[in-house]
């Protein structure tokens, strides 16, 4: 669609404008186009970096204690380790969060629940597995009720070993995630 289809301008102007490009795309396409097209252009251009800069500095995580690591997650979210200085805050509902911290063993009964929590989170979202249990089942790996392969169900960006990891390791995991978001190397590719 050219500009002359919408606004009565001389065809010569239309032809001239169709030669102009922005990030390799015809300008006319950008002016009269769909949101998808705009997203496509954002994907290609440096605007994405600005978006991701904002995203990486406001990663709110879901307060969802599941095991020992859940207690360390409480501490990580409180004053002594002060995750807020990195733009990270605990939130209580999945609808306000960007990061899901899997902080423990996933059991048969809890797997559908945690999957639903993940599906309730709005895009963009990331997932971090904290502790041995969240990685492979940990000390409970051979139990009849424990899921061992968490990574098959969730696109986990950062794995943190430890039983349980110290709150400092939570901070390190968070900063790794931020670096990944910045470099666009996260699993879901934002």
């Amino acid at each position, binding site marked *: 669609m050219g500009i002359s289809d919408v606004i009565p301008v001389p065809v010569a102007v239309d032809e001239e404008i169709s030669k102009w490009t922005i990030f390799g795309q015809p300008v006319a396409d950008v002016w009269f186009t769909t949101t998808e097209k705009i997203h496509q252009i954002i994907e290609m251009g440096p605007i994405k970096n600005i978006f991701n800069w904002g995203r990486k500095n406001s990663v709110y995580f*879901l*307060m*969802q*204690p*599941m*095991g*020992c690591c*859940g*207690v*360390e997650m*409480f*501490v990580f979210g*409180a*004053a*002594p380790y002060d995750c807020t200085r990195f733009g990270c805050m605990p939130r*209580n*509902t*999945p609808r306000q969060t960007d990061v899901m911290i899997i902080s*423990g*063993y996933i*059991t*048969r*009964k*809890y*797997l*559908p*629940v945690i*999957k*639903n*929590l993940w*599906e309730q989170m709005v895009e963009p979202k990331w997932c971090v597995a904290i502790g041995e249990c969240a990685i492979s089942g940990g*000390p*409970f*790996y*051979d*139990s*009849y*009720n*424990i*899921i*061992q*392969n*968490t990574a*098959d*169900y969730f696109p986990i960006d950062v794995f943190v070993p430890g*039983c*349980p990891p*110290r709150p400092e390791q939570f901070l390190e995991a968070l900063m790794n995630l931020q670096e990944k978001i910045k470099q666009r190397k996260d699993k879901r590719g934002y």
Partner: protein
Amino acid sequence: MTTASDVLSAVQSAFPGAVLESRVESDRRLWATIDSNSIVDVCKHLSEKLNFDHYSGAAGVDWIARKEMEVVEIMASHGAHQVVAMLKSKTPRENPSVKSLANLFWNANWYEREIWEMFGINFEGHPGLYPLLLGDELVGVWPWRKDFKGYPDLTTGQRAVERPTSEGYTEYFIPPTPAEIEAGTVPKEKPKYPSFREREEKEIKSDSEMIMHMGPQHAMLPGPFLLDILIEGERVHKAFLDMGYIHKGIEKIMENRTWLQGLTYTDRMCYVASLSNNECYCGAIEKILGLEVPLRAQYIRVILEELSRIQSHLIGTGEFMTLIAGVGYAPWNFMIIDRESIISLIESVTGARLTHTFVRFGGVRNDLPEGFSDKCRSALKYIESRTKEYIELFEQDPIYHMRMENVGVLSPDRAKRVGISGPPLRATGVAYDMRKEDPILVYPDLDFKVVTGTRGDSADRIDVRLREILESIHIIEQCLDRIPAGPIKTETKVPKKIPAGEAYYRVEDPRGEMGMYVISDGGDKPYRVKVRGPVYATLQTLPPLLEGVYIADAVAIAGSMDGCPSEADR
């Protein structure tokens, strides 16, 4: 003073022939095998005539070699005497069935449901045998039986088949393992029972009632469990509790690990009280072995357990503050800051923040570091001043009092009847504390008093916790003054194979009465470890306590209980 042999002779004279076998371990422990036909009558007699008013729990044991199953009822008293009676009743392994005590003791309900779903022992006369911890697909395979083929199970996750439900939710179906199919242990006929959802929907009586879900992930919950409340307007009519969302099968796993390896699992049952759990497990094994713990090790244990109690109460109270005061994030942050000083103190001894594995059979792993005493004293001084500040703060705040007073009131009689323990019980005025009741280590020599409340409401529960912190500080200071020099482990070598025997050992967990029933068959692994945790009883009490309150109070009540679902689920 009533002793175990008095109880035994009283039972034998009242029910001639009912006691098949008996063993008086000490003044405080009675082991008896009761004829399975008269177990209900014996328990009734004990509770009515002999002051056994505390039904503490029940354990199932699968004796596969003897082709029989056993249900062990644990009976104790709320302060009238210190005898714990372990009453066993036997049933054949084919179609096992015993008589239910649920009509006699209200809190037997959940313990029997657990035994039913794990062992398949039927309880005659039980009001509703529904699964509690297991998901629907595992019911009927009886996972804690010794011939269960689904353990070890290393492919649970890979076998999971995703399927969306009609409501648009994701569900998973996990088919049985090849080993289970080959052995033919997959049940052909599953027990029939209404699901949790069906049971609660049956209770909806009118159009103006609805069910509100709190959980499995909810700001109120310190871990995943499902609290459904049936509401009409602002009033809660009925509450339903479903748990097992983090059931790991610790008791089954511990049967397949060596004695020492099992110790690490006790850490992970309740991670803010791991030292008490260590103590409970080690104490039971020391009892079987007859080990004497050196005095210095006993003092170190007491110091660390009390430190652990302080940090547990701080995090429990802090969590509760975030619940009742939406924006009241400040007290929580202050309490976590205070808790960090205790945690770093414990860490300087054990090397870990949460999961210590510090207490060992017949001693402790390592000695206190140099300069611990001074560091500990200064930290405790700080905590003491802070705790006094918190108590004052809560006492003076009129809004807090209007919000919390007379909310979730438990009367002493009702609290005893429902089998609750720890701060919620002591808040009602019942001075029931394992440290006095069933004293272990050097507790009898120490001077401390049991903190009690008067009203038994939510405010009192918090108050009792905070004042217990002061009491713990007092205990630790005495220990630091008195701790002698000497060895920290027994001279006797602890064998890899523990001789055959059984023991029941109780400690006062920060959350209440914690007991472990350990059976050894002479091997290098436990034959059975039963954990009687305090939170299991606390969570069971929660639904009836919520009946008739406002929705907003439901949060205040559940938060003041300081539940830890990880320990309840195990």
